[in-house]
């Protein structure tokens, strides 16, 4: 399989703080990669550099073979990179359906349209006329995922989908993942819930204090290795 996303020696600074330093990773087309790590490990910063919201101080981001390190965020969406941001960031004054429609602004052709999203999340379909701000956390997260899918991404980035949601809701949301990858979308997800990450990912990439502490196939790394890489201590 060909490489869809390739990050090389990435360094991103927040002022003097190097939030990400020397991180390299690649995701093959059709794969699911989970980036795990504790709070402040640099996971969200890494995603921001991949979407272009933050500009790296060193290193390179290549997408589908092209160097996109200096490409602006909205152009990357048109190329096929879409993100479900942490905290969902729905447009609170718009209805659910309008949120989805704004998600299609990049006008990329593909399998995802209003109907496909409503089929994937029937609950979202029921709430289509509702203001996005006036929904439960799970409904909002489903809407946020649907909104990102509306751009028909080749690469879907999911930032902390489970954050602040009840386990049963998280389970429902992740149940939609096979259908998303089944339509040919590659997924890179950031997750604090290691068990959840291992359940859905083909590969895992663990970060600790801005650096890569472990990477490998999810069925080939042991829990001991992960806890060492996650907390930075020998278990």
């Amino acid at each position, binding site marked *: 399989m060909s490489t869809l996303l390739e990050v090389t020696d990435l360094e991103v600074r927040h002022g003097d703080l190097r939030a990400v330093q020397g991180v390299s990773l690649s995701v093959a087309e059709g794969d699911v990669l989970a980036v795990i790590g504790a709070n402040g490990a640099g996971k969200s910063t890494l995603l921001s550099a991949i979407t272009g919201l933050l500009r790296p101080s060193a290193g390179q981001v290549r997408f589908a073979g092209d160097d996109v390190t200096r490409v602006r965020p*909205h152009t990357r969406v048109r190329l096929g990179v879409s993100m479900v*941001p942490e905290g969902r960031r729905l447009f*609170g004054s*718009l209805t659910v359906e*309008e949120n989805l429609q*704004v998600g299609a*602004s990049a006008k990329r052709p593909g399998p995802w349209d209003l109907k496909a999203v409503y089929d994937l999340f029937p609950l979202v379909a029921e709430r289509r006329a509702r203001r996005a701000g006036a929904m439960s956390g799970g409904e909002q997260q489903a809407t946020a995922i649907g909104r990102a899918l509306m*751009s028909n991404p080749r690469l879907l980035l999911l930032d902390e989908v489970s954050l602040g949601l009840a386990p049963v809701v998280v389970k429902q949301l992740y149940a939609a993942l096979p259908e998303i990858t089944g339509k040919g979308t590659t997924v890179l997800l950031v997750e604090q819930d290691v068990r959840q990450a291992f359940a859905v990912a083909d590969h895992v990439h663990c970060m600790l204090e801005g650096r890569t502490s472990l990477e490998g196939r999810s069925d080939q790394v042991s829990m001991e290795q992960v806890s060492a890489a996650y907390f930075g201590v020998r278990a």
Partner: protein
Amino acid sequence: MTLLNAVVQGLLLGGLYALFATGLSLMFGVMRLVNLAHGEVAVLGAFGSLVLGTALGVNPLLSLLVVVPASAALGYLTQRVVLDRTVGPSPLPSLLVTFGLSIVVQNLLLATFTADQRRLDVGALTTASFRAGDLSIGYLPLAVFTTAVALLAGLSLFLARTSLGRIIRATSDDPQAVRLMGVDAKHVYGIAAAIAFATVALAGVVNGIQTNFTPLSGPLLLIIAFEAVIIGGLGNVWGTLLGGVVLGVAQTVGAWIDPAQQILAGHLVFLLVLALRPQGLLPKMAAT
């Protein structure tokens, strides 16, 4: 003049005030930017029309065909080239820059056109009116009011129903997130500024037909726009119309009581609303 007549004249005047205020409200709503040079854009529009009239003999109403699109282009450019650099968490840079722009425009106009009072001439139409019972209604004010209502209705529909309108509202909600949807937020800002400049330039030309103006008329127009926005409620198209009408009626009724107190009466009603209902008469509606 009877009290009823004063109220009707104020109502019609309110349409013009709403036109002044719409762009100010839109720019604040979308980019959280208060354009202190808003009044100067209106004055620029009026002088643009004046130049077209004296140089080419174009009727002021016809000159709108040039002035309005030119102002829209000026708005887009000003946003992309200057104002974009001031947008940020702090409102101070944009306030300083737009204040500076207003001074620059005032002085350029003074240097070019002197401080003389000007008026745009539409001939007999300026004073033409018809009688309805005791009321005397001018064709021009009525046309201005109708145009204002139609324009605001159009803007409201545009924001509520079209895909670009939806994107503008989404950008107003979260300018960062909208970039993740493939939207060029800066282009959206430019469009909002273009609409704002176009509507206020239209208001400036119409105002120049109805009353005198000078290169220094901008600040008073800005205050009127501010007051209409605050009275009506920020970020609400129909609130802006209501705010304009309340202000217009306050002024004409004030003038009916004592002709010297027209402007003061408007300010007093504004302060009253600010004290009693600081969120404005109509709260912000999400769809508009």
